């Protein structure tokens, strides 16, 4: 009856069914076995008494044992008398284990429209929560700052200097390079188009005003968000995952004061310096292109620049820098501290930190533009 090839064979005799298993009931054969078992359950609907002969099964692992259990359960659920015979004694304990398994109820299906609406709602609540988080962080920073002002020795000077080295000094070469290139590109485009109606010389006005008022600070802040904001989020997030932040709290230290304040102070000092250096590099690049590509002598460039810009132009750019630094730092730290236990969440939060801070920097720039226009600066 058992031909050694079929894992399960059935012989029905009226309402009595005899199923004979053979071969290796193991994970490697599980797929095939499952088909045979489900087939048998579907085919022998009339069976009232089922005997499952396991005498010729020479190997059984949890996969095979579970399928046997499923077979028994399927017939028993139909009210058939089911018994397993000939099972080797050393597999008895395994079968008893699996017999006790209680499967989970399948989760109730939800209406897709409601699910869609729910996900929109969850996203909106999430945006609100992250805005609240930033406000919360600004408040906590203000409190920490007041404490430090009341007692200046509480400021972590070493940490602040270390962070300043990371986000300021080490960022100088890349910032100079990028702003220099942007200055070159603006000047080249300006010369190319202005020349058509003989207004070459106004390129200098455009480069000067654009770089000092807007581009210098924007490019530096976007770079800082990508370079230092993401690092802050990842650092704080990893510390959160490894319970280092909780450890600080239990020692009676405020993580905002110990970790966040030095980082944000470093950014508030570092970003204006980088903005200044970046603007100078952009003006230099613009001048170089004007000279080599536009034929405007450096002397004329400098003279024209003096006429086109005044201290106000420079101030507008520089005033914005520390505020943008604050936004980038606060967003990065909020996201870092909201990392949950998983590696995936660390990645998500780092992405969110960069995207949000760049977005907020640009929004802030727009608000400053309106403000300066209305006070006539």
């Amino acid at each position: 009856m058992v031909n050694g090839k079929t894992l399960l064979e059935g012989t029905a005799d009226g309402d009595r069914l005899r199923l004979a298993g053979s071969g290796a009931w193991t994970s490697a054969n599980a797929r095939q076995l499952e088909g045979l078992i489900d087939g048998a359950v579907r085919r022998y609907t009339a069976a009232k008494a089922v005997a499952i002969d396991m005498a010729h099964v020479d190997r059984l692992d949890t996969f095979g044992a579970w399928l046997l259990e499923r077979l028994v359960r399927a017939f028993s659920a139909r009210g058939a008398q089911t018994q397993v015979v000939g099972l080797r004694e050393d597999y008895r304990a395994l079968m008893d284990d699996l017999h006790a398994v209680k499967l989970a109820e399948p989760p109730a299906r939800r209406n897709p429209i409601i699910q869609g609406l729910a996900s929109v709602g969850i996203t909106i609540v999430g945006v609100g929560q992250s805005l609240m988080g930033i406000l919360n962080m600004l408040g906590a920073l203000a409190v920490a700052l007041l404490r430090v002002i009341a007692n200046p020795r509480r400021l972590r000077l070493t940490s602040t200097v270390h962070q300043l080295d990371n986000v300021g000094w080490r960022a100088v070469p890349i910032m100079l390079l990028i702003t220099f290139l942007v200055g070159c590109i603006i000047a080249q485009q300006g010369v190319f188009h202005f020349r058509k109606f003989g207004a070459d010389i106004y390129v200098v006005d455009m480069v000067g005003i654009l770089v000092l008022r807007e581009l210098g600070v924007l490019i530096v802040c976007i770079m800082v968000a990508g370079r230092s904001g993401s690092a802050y989020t990842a650092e704080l997030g990893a510390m959160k995952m490894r319970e280092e932040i909780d450890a600080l709290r239990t020692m009676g230290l405020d993580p905002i004061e110990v970790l966040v304040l030095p980082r944000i102070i470093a950014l508030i000092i570092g970003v204006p310096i980088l903005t200044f250096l970046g603007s100078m590099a952009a003006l230099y690049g613009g001048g170089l292109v004007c000279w080599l590509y536009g034929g405007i002598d450096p002397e004329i460039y400098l003279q024209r620049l003096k006429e086109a810009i005044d201290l106000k132009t420079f101030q507008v750019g520089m005033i914005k820098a520390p505020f943008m630094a604050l936004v980038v730092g606060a967003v990065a730290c909020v996201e870092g501290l909201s990392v949950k236990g998983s590696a995936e969440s660390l990645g998500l939060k780092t992405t969110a930190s960069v995207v949000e801070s760049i977005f907020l920097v640009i929004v802030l720039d727009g608000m400053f533009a309106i403000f300066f226009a209305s006070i006539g600066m």
Partner: protein
Amino acid sequence: MAQENGQMNGSANGKAKDVIIEVRDVVVGFGSRVVLNHLDLDVYRGEILGFVGGSGAGKSVLMRTIVGLLPKRSGLIKVLGVDMTNGPEAQRRAVERRWGVLFQQGALFSSLTVKENIQFPMREYLKLPQRLMDEMAVAKLEMVGLDASALDKFPSELSGGMTKRVSLARALSLDPDIVFLDEPTSGLDPIGAGDFDSLIATLQKTLGLTVFMVTHDLDSLHTVCDRIAVLVDGKVAVAGTMETMLASTHPWLRAYFHGKRSRGAQGLDTKADVAPIPTP
């Protein structure tokens, strides 16, 4: 002497000696520091081997070398008869499917749920229908003493004991022949550790596992280990049953197995004389 003891006790429980892991003359080091110095060890089929040694003695190093995470400088490691260094690639891959490893911190994939963690090896190696994998995940979870309510949790939501159990379930996912356990009871309370010990003993019986257990837990050594191997100075100093350990005159073993904590584990009055325990 070490080898002699090992051989003697391997046959003591009446089973045929079937060496499942064979470690010969293995040297492992980092830079100028040699951690395992010409180490020999046999693990027999169907036994629970407790591997002990001082902190930093290289217990985990041997385990990681056997499973191929650390390179060895010389020597031979055979698992299920396959040379794990020079054997054919396909055979070595096949052996890797027949062992499961429980890491000290669990090493569950943090971005996958408990169910996905347990199904991960099945998904990679077996082409099974989703329904069967879902049922198997529940079955494996129940075998390690949890229930279906843990299925959709993420590893960060689990307690220490649950993490160990879920990682054991993942290690057992493909019905391995050998399970490597790296300090399975560390970080568990004594009750949890005791439960985990009896769980390992039960699973070893039901599934016919061979267990290689790196441990510090004297209670585990007493209650579940068939045989104990002691690592001192980069070598297996003694291998054998608990009685052999207690009878040994090696100074490190005497300090380890006759210390206050050990005698507590044996249920002895800690003030009693140091004497070998009569075998039951």
